[in-house]
């Protein structure tokens, strides 16, 4: 159970940040849903709902997306789906249900860097930077690796509109379960980006695999070898949903499925 002593709707980002940093046990509320599952004792809950951060702006070279944009918003946005081959739609589709998708915000998901997150795996294979209120712009990859330098608030993200191909693959038991493993892939020109998440650790870029595939044609041999590189470079673990060995084997499988999709796309 969580406890909150005061609830606060700031009217500006500055006011939000000020309140957040006032006390150690003050916290920013996104959707507020995931919070409930823990047992935090919060002093002041800072709710960003009045800051107009629920938006998706399609510009010429990028998408600018506010931190309070919901998963449902991301999943159903036509412009995003068109540009990114339904990458976000596929990543978000199997999450629980529409109601929860209407509540979960991308800002909260990014800031918390959840291991099980399908969305973060997908986002990681795009060229995305995150605007932190205090810390400024930072690449998503860097943010996921290191977290914020100090307590901060995600204000918005910017996804570059690069021409390419995008794929999301996941493996789960029943359709509302967390992923046993998920994989996202993008190919922008000759350049690959591959992220593996729910390992059960959080999404990470498979840099060696990406380097291996760079410029290579997608033959059976190369796909097989890429799988092996992936298996060696990523760390897999065991939890209730699957064992280390299974995840390791499935990493190869998901990569192959994504690469095959890519080669069909190019044809």
């Amino acid at each position, binding site marked *: 159970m969580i406890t*909150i002593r005061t609830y606060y709707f700031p009217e500006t980002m500055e006011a939000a940040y000020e309140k957040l940093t006032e006390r150690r046990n003050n916290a920013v509320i996104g959707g507020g849903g995931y919070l409930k599952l823990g047992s935090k004792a919060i002093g002041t809950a800072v709710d960003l709902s009045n800051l107009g951060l629920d938006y998706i702006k399609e510009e010429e070279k990028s998408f600018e997306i506010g931190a309070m944009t919901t998963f449902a918003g991301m999943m159903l946005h036509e412009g995003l789906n068109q540009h990114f081959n339904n990458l976000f739609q596929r990543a978000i589709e199997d999450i*629980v249900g529409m109601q929860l998708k*209407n509540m979960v915000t991308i800002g909260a998901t990014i800031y918390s860097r959840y291991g099980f997150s399908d969305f973060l795996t997908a986002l990681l294979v795009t060229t995305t930077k995150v605007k932190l209120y205090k810390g400024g712009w930072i690449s998503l990859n860097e943010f996921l690796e290191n977290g914020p330098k100090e307590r901060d608030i995600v204000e918005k993200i910017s996804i570059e509109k690069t021409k390419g191909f995008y794929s999301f693959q996941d493996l789960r038991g029943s359709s509302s379960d967390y992923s046993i493993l998920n994989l996202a892939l993008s190919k922008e020109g000759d350049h690959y980006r591959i992220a593996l998440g729910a390992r059960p650790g959080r999404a990470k870029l498979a840099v060696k695999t990406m380097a291996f595939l760079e410029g290579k044609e997608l033959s059976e041999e190369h796909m097989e070898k890429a799988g092996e590189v992936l298996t060696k470079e990523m760390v897999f673990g065991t939890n209730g949903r699957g064992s280390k060995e299974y995840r390791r084997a499935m990493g190869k499988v998901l990569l192959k499925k994504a690469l095959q999709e890519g080669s069909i796309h190019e044809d």
Partner: protein
Amino acid sequence: MKIKVTINGKEKELEIAPDDYLSEVLRKEGLLGVKKGCDTESCGLCTIHLEDVAVLSCGTLAAKADGKSITTIEGVREKAEQVRYQLAKRGVDQCGFCAPGTIMSILYLEKVVENPTDEEINRYLKGNFCRCSGYVGQLEAVKSYLEGQKHEVCE
């Protein structure tokens, strides 16, 4: 703290604690159609509309509803008549515990998706568990309902 909400068309001022979740607050207000089935926002029984968007009231902090409109199953008594008719006709009302939440999701689907496919219907209803009916009958009932609504509009 005090919040001002419009519940099923009626303006109300409610006294809540900052860590109250909407489901409990609504039930305390006598809206007993808001059910609770789990502790992890997984089952959908507590589905309501917040500003016409379907959300889980058990995962929505009541404070978030300040200044907003809430619709519960009690507020759609007339609107949901044909939905009820189709569900009852197919016998998928069963224990009824999933029904209010499921009906709220059906109405939301109807509002935001025109001519939904089976896949889209399941997408919007996926967050509503039902242990009794096996789902297939509910899908049939929803389709019959949407079909019937089309004809009504034509008339």
